[in-house]
C-alpha cells in the first residue's frame, strides 16, 4: 500500500485569488486500490475548489460508509469533515446545514451507501432540497465486501466471478429528477474535462445538486462484460453536451466547434455554457431530461453531462423560513427573548 507522498510540488504551481495552490486543497494519500476511479473524483473536487477560490475552512465534507465514503480523507484536509453511519450521511448533512448554512456541504456517497442502505435518506434529502452537493461515486459493486453486485449494477452486467446480474438497476439520476432535485448531472471519473465544470456548477448551485459519477472499481468490476468498467464507460458514454462553467465577470474564452451554444445564466451571475449535442433535450425541462435518459438507456448508453437544472430552487432554509443568521450563531438572548415576548406570542394564538 502506498502510504507516503513527497511534499514537494511543482515549483511553478499557479495560485488562486486566495493565494493558495491546489496543494492546499489536497488530502492525505489515498489508501484505495491503485487505479480506483474515486481517486480521480477526489482530484476533481480538489481542482474545482481551487479554481473557485473556496476557503477550505468554509467547507464541510460528509460521508457514510464504503470505499467512496473514505475519500473525504483524500481531499480538502483543511476542511471540516464527518464520516457518519452507513447510509446516514444525508441526515448528518441536514443537521449540520440547518445549524450553519454558511458552509459549503459536500456529501460523498457510493452506490451501496445511497441506493441500498441509505435509499430512505437519499430520497428525503432530495425532497427537502437541502443546499448541498451530493456526489455518488457509482461503481455498481460492493468493493469493500469483495465484489457483490450493487443496486445500481445493470441487468446483464457480468461480475468478475462470471455471474450475470439478474436485477434491473436503480437509476439514481432519473430518481433524483423525479423527486424534484434542482440540479442533476452524470459524469465519468475518467473525464475530468467534463467533471470539473459540472462540480463547479454544482458547488455554486443554491440547492440540492446531485452528481452521479461512474467510477470504475479496478479490483472487482473492471472486467469484460461489466457495464461499469473503464472501457465500457468510455465506449458507451453519450454526452448531453460539453459544459463549461464560466465564473462571474470572466470573459468567455472557450471556443466551440459548430453547433448550438447555450448559455444558462446562474443565480449569482456566473454561467454554464453548453455545446449541446442532443437537440431534443432541454436542461430546464424535467420531462425532456427524463426522456433523454430513457432514450440513452435504450441505446445502452450512459448519458453524461448536465441533465437537469432549476435555476431558482427553493432550498430547505427558504422552505422553513429560518433566520438569516446561522442558527449556531444565535445567542441566548436572541433564542430566549424573555417572558414578555412569550406572552405576546401566546396572545397571538388567542
Amino acid at each position, binding site marked *: 500500500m*502506498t502510504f507516503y507522498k513527497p511534499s514537494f510540488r511543482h515549483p511553478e504551481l499557479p495560485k488562486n485569488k486566495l493565494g493558495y495552490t491546489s496543494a492546499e486543497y489536497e488530502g492525505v494519500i489515498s489508501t484505495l486500490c491503485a487505479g*480506483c476511479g474515486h481517486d*480521480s473524483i477526489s482530484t476533481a473536487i480538489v481542482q474545482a475548489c481551487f479554481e473557485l477560490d473556496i476557503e477550505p475552512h468554509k467547507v464541510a465534507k460528509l460521508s457514510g460508509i464504503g470505499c467512496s465514503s473514505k475519500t473525504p480523507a483524500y481531499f480538502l484536509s483543511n476542511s471540516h469533515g464527518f464520516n457518519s453511519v452507513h447510509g446516514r450521511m444525508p441526515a448528518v448533512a441536514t443537521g449540520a446545514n440547518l445549524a450553519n448554512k454558511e458552509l459549503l456541504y459536500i456529501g460523498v456517497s457510493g452506490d451501496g451507501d445511497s441506493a441500498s442502505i441509505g435509499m430512505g435518506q437519499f430520497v428525503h434529502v432530495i425532497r427537502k432540497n437541502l443546499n448541498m452537493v451530493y456526489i455518488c461515486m457509482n461503481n455498481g459493486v460492493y468493493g469493500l465486501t469483495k465484489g457483490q453486485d450493487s443496486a445500481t449494477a445493470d441487468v446483464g452486467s457480468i461480475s468478475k466471478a462470471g455471474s450475470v446480474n439478474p436485477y434491473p438497476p436503480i437509476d439514481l439520476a432519473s430518481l433524483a429528477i423525479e423527486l424534484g432535485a434542482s440540479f442533476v448531472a452524470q459524469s465519468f471519473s*475518467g473525464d475530468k474535462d467534463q467533471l470539473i465544470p459540472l462540480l463547479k456548477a454544482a458547488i455554486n448551485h443554491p440547492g440540492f445538486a446531485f452528481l452521479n459519477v461512474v467510477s470504475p472499481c479496478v479490483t472487482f468490476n473492471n472486467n469484460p462484460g461489466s457495464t461499469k468498467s473503464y472501457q465500457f464507460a468510455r465506449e458507451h458514454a453519450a454526452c448531453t453536451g460539453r459544459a463549461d462553467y464560466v465564473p462571474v465577470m470572466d470573459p468567455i474564452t472557450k471556443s466551440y466547434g459548430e453547433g448550438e451554444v447555450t448559455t444558462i445564466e446562474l443565480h449569482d451571475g456566473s454561467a454554464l455554457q453548453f455545446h449541446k449535442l442532443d437537440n431534443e433535450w432541454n436542461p430546464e425541462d424535467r420531462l425532456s431530461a427524463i426522456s433523454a435518459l430513457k432514450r440513452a438507456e435504450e441505446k445502452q448508453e450512459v448519458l453524461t453531462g448536465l441533465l437537469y437544472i432549476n435555476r431558482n430552487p427553493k432550498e430547505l432554509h427558504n422552505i422553513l423560513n429560518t433566520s438569516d443568521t446561522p442558527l449556531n450563531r444565535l445567542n441566548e438572548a436572541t433564542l430566549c427573548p424573555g417572558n414578555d415576548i412569550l406572552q405576546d406570542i401566546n396572545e397571538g394564538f388567542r
Partner: protein
Amino acid sequence: MKPTDTKNPEYFHKVVDCQYACPSHTPIPQYLRLIAQGRYSESYMVNWDSNVFPGILGRTCDRPCEPACRRGRVEEKPVAICRLKRVAADHKEDVKRMMPQGPFPPNGKKIALIGGGPSSLTVARDLAPIGYEIHLFDDQSKGGGFMRSQIPSFRLPDEVLDEEVGYILDLGIHTHFNHYVSSMKEMLEKDYDAIYVGTGAPRGRDLPDLPGRWDAKENIHVGINWLASVAFEHTKSIGKRVLVLGGGNTAMDCCRTARRLGGTDVKVVVRSPKSEMKASEWEIEDALHEDIPIFDNHVPKSFVVKDGKLQGMMFEKVKAVYDDTGKRKLIPTGEPDVFFEADDAIVAIGQENSFPWIERDLGIEFNEWGMPILDAKTFASTHPKVFFGGDASLGPKNIITSVAQGHQVAISIHLLCEGLNIKQDRPSPFVNLHSMKMGIHEWSYDSQVVNDKRYIVPQADKSETLNNIKKEVELGFDELEAFKEAERCLNCDMQTVFEENLCIECDACVDVCPTDCITFTFNEEDEGEMRAKLTMPALNTDQSLYVSDKVKTGRIMVKDENVCLHCGLCAERCPTSAWDMKQFYYNVTKAHNMGEDGLPPTVIY
C-alpha cells in the same frame, strides 16, 4: 510529436542530470546509494572506474554535476555530490583488491605519456591492464601534475594524492620523473606506438607591461609558479600585506596560501564585478571565511615601487556596462584611483598553454593561438601517432574534464594499435535497464523522497588551519551526515518507463503525481504547443518530454521530465503496471573494457 525512442541510451541518460553533466559521466545516483548503504568501497570503485581520482575530486572537483542536480530545481540546493564522493574515499576499506591485478600479459605495444597529470594517469590506467607498456614522463619528482603543484595541501592532502596516483603507477607504469621532455622529435624517433601529450597549461599569465612590474621582481609573483614553489617547499614565507590579483580558483588558492605563510592582511583585487568572478562559489566563501576581503571592479594601473621595494598598487575604479549583445565593457567610474599597500603581490589572472618543446616541422599542426589542431572526439593531432588531452588539448578546464578526455584518448590509442578506425570503431556506452519492482508497492530502492536541506561540511577551526599549511580545512562528512545527505538524492536513474499497451487510462498516475509531470492529451505537431498545453506547462526546454504512442482513446501520454521526483508513485498507483520504475545504468566504455579480450565493465548494484 513522435513517440520518444527510449531505446536510445542518451534519452534516459539525459534524465540523470548529474551524470549527464559530468564530463566522464560518473554514475552518480548509483554511488550515492552505495554510500547510503554504507558500502563505501563499492561506491569508491564506481567512482574509480569513471573518474579515476575519487579522493582528489571529492575535494577539488569543479562539480558540474551540482548545478544540474534535480534537487536544486525542487528545493533550494543540490545534493552535495562532490563531498559525498570524498566520503566514499575516506571510509573505504582496502580497494586495491577490487582493481585490476597485475602483472598483465604484455601486448607488445609501447606508449609514451608526456606529463604526469590527471589526463596522462587516466590514459595509463585505462591502457595498462590490457598489456600496454607505458612510459610516463614528468619534470616533477612525483606524479599528479598540477594536482600536486597547484592545489594547496590544506585543500588536498599529499597522502590522498599519493594514494590515488599510486593505484595507477602500481599497475606497472614505467615512470620517468624529474625528466623534462625537451624535444618531441626525439620522442618520435623512439619506438613508441603512440605518444600522448598531457602537459597541461603550464604558463601563468603575467602583467608584463604594467608600470613597475619589473622594478620589484622579488615581491611580484606569478600565481601558479608561486603555488608550485610553495608546494615543493621552496617558498616558505610571504610579506604581511599581500595583494592577489585575479578572480579565479587559482587566485583563491593563492590568497588562502598567503594567509598561511605569514600574510595577515591579504586582499583579493579583481577587475570584474564579484558576480562574474570565475572562482567557484564555495572557494570564494572559504576565502571570505579566512578574513580575506575581495575588492571588485578594480583595474590594476601600476605597481608602486620605492627604492627597489614594492610599496603597493594603484587601481582604477570601473563599472561593468553591457551592450545589447550582452558583451561586457569595464568603464572607469571617474572616482579617484585607489592605492592598496602591499609587501607582496601575486598575479593570478589565468594560465596558458605552451609547447616550446614541440618542433613545428614534425607534422603536428598548431592553430593561430598556438594550440594543436585536434579532432574533438578522438583527440588525435594531425600526426597519426600523437594525441593531446587534458588542459593541453582545448585549453585550461578542470580535472574531471581532463579525466574524461583521458578515457577517450586511451580508446583512440587502443583502436590505433589494434589497427582499427579511431573515429568509426569507437565503442558504445554500456547500458542496462531493469525493473526495480519487488512487490506490489515495493521497490528495491528507497523511493521515499525526503525533505531535507543540504548539509554543510564541517571545517577545522580557523586558528588551527591558518597556522599549519598542511592541515586540511574541510573535515568531511561523518557517516551519519553522509547518510542523510546521500538520502537527498532523488534517484534520477530510476526511470519511469511507460508501456502504452497496458494503460487503461484510469488517471491514477496523473492524480497522484506530486509534481504534475504527467498529462494525457491529444498529440500536437509542434513541441512548443505541446509544452504549453500540459497540465503544468513544461517551460524548462532543457528538459525532455517523454511522449508515448497512442493509448486506447487516441490520446498520448506526455511526461515532462523537469521536476519528476522519481518517487515511483505513478508506478505504484498504476493498476496494470503500465508504469514501471527501472534502473538505468549508463557507463562510458573504457579502453580496457573493449573487445572480447577486454575486462568486464564495472557494474556494482
